[in-house]
C-alpha cells in the first residue's frame, strides 16, 4: 500500500468515527433527557392533584360561602334544600380514624418491639411477610369482613349496635394499618446503634427496660413517622367505611353510630350519575381538598415532632 493511497482511505474513516462518536454523545443526551422527564413526571402528579383540587374547589366556593362550609352542621348536598356544612363528614372521619389509631398504634408498637428485640431471626422471617400480607389484602375485602363478620361479632357483645357503625369499620382499619406502623417502627428501632443497646444491657437492664426506656426514645423520630403514615392511611381509607359505616352524614362523636366519612361521601356521589360542573360534582373536590388539608396538617405536625426529638448519632 503506498502512502498516498493510505491517506485517501484514512480521512473518511476518521470522519466516520467522529460522526459515530457524536451520534453516541447525542444519543446519551437524549436518553438522559428522557430519564429526567420520567423523574420529573412525579412532580407533575402532585401539581395535577393540587391544581385540579384547587380549581374545582374554587368553583364550589363560588356557590357556597366558606363560613357555611365550616359552620353549618348539615351536609345534604343532594337534597332539594341543600346544606353544605363539612363538619358531619369531618367528625365521621375523625372518629373512625381515632378508633383505628387506638387499635393500630399500641398493637403496632408492641409488635415492633417484639420483632426487633425479642423474636429470633427465624420467627421474624416468618412473621414479617405474613403481617405484610395483611396490608396487601384489597380494602374492599376488609369492608366485607367488617360488615359481615366483625359487626355481627360486636353485636353479640353490644346488642344495641346498629348494622352500620363506625366502631367496626375503625377496628378493621386499625388492624389493616398495623403492618405500616410495626414495620416502620421496627426499622427505626433496628437503626439505633448497637453500643446504646449494649450500654443499657451492661447496666443490668432487661430487654423490656432497654426497649421502653432506651430504644423507643432513641428511635422516636422514626416511630413518629410511622404513626403519621398510619394516620394518613386511616384518614384516607375509603372502602371499609363506605361499606361498613353507612353513608349517612351524622354529626356525632359516638363510634357506636353510623356516619359518613369524607371518603365515603366521595364514593357515594361518584356512584350516581353526576352532571359535570354541578355543585354536587364540585362538592367532592371540596371534600377531597379538606381531606388533603387534614393529612397535610398531621404531616407537618409529625415533621415538627420529629425535628424536635431527632437523635443524631
Amino acid at each position: 500500500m503506498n502512502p498516498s493511497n493510505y491517506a485517501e482511505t484514512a480521512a473518511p474513516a476518521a470522519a466516520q468515527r467522529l460522526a459515530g462518536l457524536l451520534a453516541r454523545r447525542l444519543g446519551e443526551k437524549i436518553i438522559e433527557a428522557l430519564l429526567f422527564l420520567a423523574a420529573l413526571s412525579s412532580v407533575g402528579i402532585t401539581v395535577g392533584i393540587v391544581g385540579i383540587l384547587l380549581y374545582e374547589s374554587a368553583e364550589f366556593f363560588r356557590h357556597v360561602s366558606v363560613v357555611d362550609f365550616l359552620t353549618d352542621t348539615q351536609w345534604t348536598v343532594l337534597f332539594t334544600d341543600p346544606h353544605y356544612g363539612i363538619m358531619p363528614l369531618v367528625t365521621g372521619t375523625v372518629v373512625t380514624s381515632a378508633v383505628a389509631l387506638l387499635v393500630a398504634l399500641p398493637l403496632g408498637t408492641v409488635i415492633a418491639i417484639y420483632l426487633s428485640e425479642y423474636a429470633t431471626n427465624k420467627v421474624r422471617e416468618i412473621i414479617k411477610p405474613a403481617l405484610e400480607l395483611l396490608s396487601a389484602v384489597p380494602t374492599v375485602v376488609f369492608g366485607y369482613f367488617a360488615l359481615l363478620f366483625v359487626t355481627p361479632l360486636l353485636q353479640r357483645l353490644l346488642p344495641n349496635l346498629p348494622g352500620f357503625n363506625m366502631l367496626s369499620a375503625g377496628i378493621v382499619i386499625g388492624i389493616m394499618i398495623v403492618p405500616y406502623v410495626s414495620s416502620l417502627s421496627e426499622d427505626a428501632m433496628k437503626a439505633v446503634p448497637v453500643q446504646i443497646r449494649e450500654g443499657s444491657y451492661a447496666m443490668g437492664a432487661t430487654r423490656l427496660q432497654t426497649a421502653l426506656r432506651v430504644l423507643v426514645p432513641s428511635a422516636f423520630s422514626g416511630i413518629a413517622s410511622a404513626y403519621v403514615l398510619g394516620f394518613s392511611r386511616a384518614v384516607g381509607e375509603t372502602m371499609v367505611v363506605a361499606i361498613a359505616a353507612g353513608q349517612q352524614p351524622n354529626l356525632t362523636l359516638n363510634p357506636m353510630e353510623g356516619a359518613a366519612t369524607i371518603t365515603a361521601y366521595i364514593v357515594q356521589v361518584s356512584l350516581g350519575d353526576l352532571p359535570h360542573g354541578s355543585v354536587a360534582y364540585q362538592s367532592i373536590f371540596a371534600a377531597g381538598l379538606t381531606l388533603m388539608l387534614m393529612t397535610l396538617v398531621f404531616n407537618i405536625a409529625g415533621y415538627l415532632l420529629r425535628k424536635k426529638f431527632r437523635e443524631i448519632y
Partner: protein
Amino acid sequence: MAPAGTERGAGASRRKFYDRAFAIFGLLATFVGLITLSALILDLALDGADRLSAQFLSSFPSRFPEQAGILSAWVGTTLVMLVTASTAVPMGVAAGVYLEEYAPKNWLTALIEINIANLAGVPSIVYGLMALGLFVYQLRLGQSVLTAGLTLALLILPIVIVATRESVRAVPGSIHEAAYALGATKWQMVKDHVLPYSTGGILTGVIIALSRAIGETAPLITIGALTFIAFLPGSPVKAEFPFISFDWLMSPFTVMPIQMFNWVSRPQEEFHLNAAAAGLVLMLMTLVMNGLAIYLRYRFRKRIRW
C-alpha cells in the same frame, strides 16, 4: 446487708418476670394480626366457596344472584392492569434509574425526592379525583379502560420508583467502574450491567405494586366506572388488517373490586355470597402475586454473590 440483698433480688426477679411476660404479650400481639388474616380468608372461603364455579367465572353480572358471574370484572381487571403495567413500569424504572445514576445533587433532585416520599401518603381516592378532573373532563378520555389504567399507574408510580432505586443502589460500584474501564458510555453501562443485575429487585417491586393496583377500588369508582357491565370490551385481536385493535382502550369497564363492592352493598344475602366468591378470587390473585414476590426476593438474594 441481707435484707437489701433480697430486696434487690426481688426487684431483679420482678423485672425478669415483666421481661418474660412481655415476650408472650408481644407474640400474642402479632397473633392478633395473623388470626385476623386467617379469619378473613376462612370467612370468605366458607361463604363463597359454593358459588365459585366455571359458570361464575364465565357469566356476566345479573339480577338473579345464582346466575351472576364475574366475566366482565376479571376481563376488565386484566385490561386495566395491562395499561397500568405498560405505563408505570417504563416510567417508574426510568425515574428510578435517573435518580440513582444520573441525578446531580441540586434543589430539583431534592424536590423530586421529597415529592415521591410525600406521594406515598396521599390517599388513593385523591388520585381518583385528580383523574376525574384531568383525564375524564380536561383530556376527554372518558370513563374508560385507558383512564382507569393511567390512574392506577400514577398511583403505583412511587412504589415502582422506590423499588427500582433500592435495587439499582445495591449494584456495587466495581461493576460500574469495570464497564467504564472497557469504554462503555453511561447508558451502555446502565443498560448492559446495572439493569440486568437489578431486574430481580425491580420485578419484585413491580409485582407488589400491581397487586396493590388490582385491589384498588376507590379511585376507579371516583372516575365513574360502572358497576353493571354486561358486555366485554372490543377484542384486541382482529381477523382483518391490521389485526390489532385498540378500541378496548376507550371502552367502559368494571373491575373485580368494584363488582364485589356492588354485591356487598346490596341488602339480599344471596348477593353477599357472590361478593364472598368474588372476594375469594381477588384474595387468590393478591396472595399468588405476593407469594411470587416473596419467592423472587428470596431467590435473587440467594443467587447474587458479588
